[in-house]
């Protein structure tokens, strides 16, 4: 992972020819800091495809992130973006959504940001069922700091802080947020970009807390440490080890340990948090909460 970049003069036409979603980018910030072969590029494209098919307005989109490779995404997209401190993306997103419920708020986060340092905010945002779409790029490792274990690193996997193999038990993020009350959950890998963009669309359209996990490759650190040296070998591994949730019943618990269960798991209705606050404001003051009141009060 390169820590940072300076924008240099770039030939934008090349980007536009290569990517139909380039119009959503802050072109003066390209190229990105992401390593070659990183799964974040696939995730951004899947997000923009899902966003377009949702019919939502890009001008009304606000992106929030914490710290880590995936949290750098909002800085590259040309909408309002809030790049916050490590683990706190969901608490900032909660304040932004409540402060102005008209905004469509999407959170980009990673396994370390969402499940380690930010784990408390993850379960509480799910509990509130606040209308946020969380895209968690799970690469099973800390990329930005150079390859340490994360709360989703498989047992036995190697990292710079697990030189003998991880002895921690990994989190199942979908089980975690489901138990906490999320009303839409889905998990795909970067080998499933179409299914992923469809789930992102469904998550965006759910009026509640939506959590989409993207199992993604970090060839630079996870791959190099764990004998999956190329992005292709990692994506191949995702294809071979993923199993649709419908087929899970045929496998034993032990067999499932080495599998990535993919699909949409929860899609249900429950009252949304910012709506409840609006209803309360209506009841007590006779109107919705005042938008942008700092400019008039």
């Amino acid at each position, binding site marked *: 992972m390169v*820590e*940072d970049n*300076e*924008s240099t003069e770039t030939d934008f036409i090349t980007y536009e020819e290569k990517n139909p979603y380039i119009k959503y980018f*802050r072109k*003066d*910030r390209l190229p990105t800091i992401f390593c070659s072969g990183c799964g974040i590029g696939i995730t951004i494209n899947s997000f923009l495809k899902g966003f377009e098919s949702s019919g939502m307005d890009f*001008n*009304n989109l*606000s992106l*929030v992130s914490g710290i880590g490779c995936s949290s750098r995404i*909002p*800085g590259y997209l*040309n*909408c*309002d*973006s*809030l*790049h*916050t*401190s490590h*683990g*706190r993306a*969901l*608490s*900032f*997103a*909660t*304040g*932004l959504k*409540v*402060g*102005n419920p*008209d*905004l469509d708020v999407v959170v980009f986060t990673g396994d370390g940001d969402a499940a380690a340092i930010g784990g*408390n*905010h993850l379960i*509480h945002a799910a509990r509130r069922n606040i209308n946020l779409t969380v895209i968690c790029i799970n690469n099973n490792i800390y990329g930005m700091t150079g390859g340490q274990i994360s709360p989703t690193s498989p047992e036995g996997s190697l990292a710079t802080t697990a030189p003998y193999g991880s002895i921690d038990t990994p989190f199942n993020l979908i089980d975690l947020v489901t138990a906490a009350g999320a009303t839409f959950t889905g998990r795909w890998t970067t080998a499933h970009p179409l299914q992923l963009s469809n789930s992102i669309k469904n998550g965006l359209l759910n009026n509640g807390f939506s959590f989409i996990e993207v199992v993604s490759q970090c060839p630079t650190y996870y791959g190099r440490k764990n004998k999956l040296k190329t992005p292709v070998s990692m994506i191949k591994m995702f294809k071979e080890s993923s199993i649709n949730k419908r087929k899970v019943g045929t496998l034993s618990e032990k067999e499932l340990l080495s599998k990535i269960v993919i699909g949409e798991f929860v899609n249900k209705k429950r009252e949304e948090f910012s709506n409840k*606050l609006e209803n*309360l*404001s209506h*009841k*007590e*003051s006779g*109107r*919705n*909460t*005042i*938008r*942008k*009141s*700092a*400019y*008039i*009060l």
Partner: protein
Amino acid sequence: MTKELFIQGNEACARGAIEAGCRFFGGYPITPSTEIAEYLSTTLPEVSGSFIQMEDELSAIGAVIAASWSGVKSMTATSGPGFSLMQENIGFAMMSETPLVVVDVQRGSPSTGQPTMSGQGDMMQARWGSHGDYEPIAISPSSVQEFFDFTVLGFNLAEKYRVPVIILADEVIGHMREKVRLPDNVETFKRIMPKEDPKDFLPFKNVRNGTNPMPAFGDGYNIHVTGLTHNELGYPITINPKVHSNLVRRLVNKILKNRKDIVSCDFKYCDDADIVLISYGSPVRSIMETVKIGRSSGIKLGYLKINTPYPFPEDEVVKIAKNVNDLMVVEMNLGQMFHEIERVASSNAGVHLFSEIGGTLPKPNDILDRILELL
């Protein structure tokens, strides 16, 4: 027509926040600040605002920062342990120039300390608690009336300079009940929207007075807000020394160069005084009484009441130090603002410390006894 009420300090603070235009509170219960949250949980929905009880103080300050960027004046209230948890994101608010108010009703410390007793142990935490160079604005009320007035002032300064403002109250002021006068009309500083077209607007421009207008999320400015070192557009540029230096110096100077506009002190009987007592927050009440008793028995005492511990009123302290023999700093810790005062005044006057820890206010007679030792 002003309204007179007999209310608790924490309620006065909450009422001040509403009058100042606060329409978002995110917080976590902690003694002795909780009544602020309780009062606002009732009042905010009545004025079309939002109240959230967050899962901890880390998330409380995060929600408050983002609510401010949504275009709403926002605040939280806490005490020492929660204030410690908020430090990282107070730094984020400094770096991202986010207006907000943090009320710290100080209690006995360190650690969990004395939840229901008073203290002033957070003075240096308010100054240096977050990592890096920054200039905080902190205001200390010494009466229930001032807790109302200074909360309004806190919001106005936060908006004017686009900074987090810390109200450094203490348990005595938070829980005491006094008569307050609530004015009909409170003067507020309304946030300024940029006039430029979004494509021409630099949200973090290196302007002379340091403070830029602030758009809200959703206004079409497509701004990027980050805690990383950023250029005038807001884009992260972390390895260019000049970009970092320009940014941090502007953030520091926008407070230091406007020190005169922000700093506030009150003093009495300093002209002919031999010894001047200096305090802030609730012990101001003790030094006022000490001066009264001292003067009645012929000791020439005066007092300096610091309303804004930060930016530190350096000039005001030096001016008084030049005219007296001794200064005595009275505070409810083992010496925090004392060191600031000693730093600027010791070449002009003797600087002494009267510490009171344990949770109760310093007693005027005890202060007087120490003064008699000096004479």
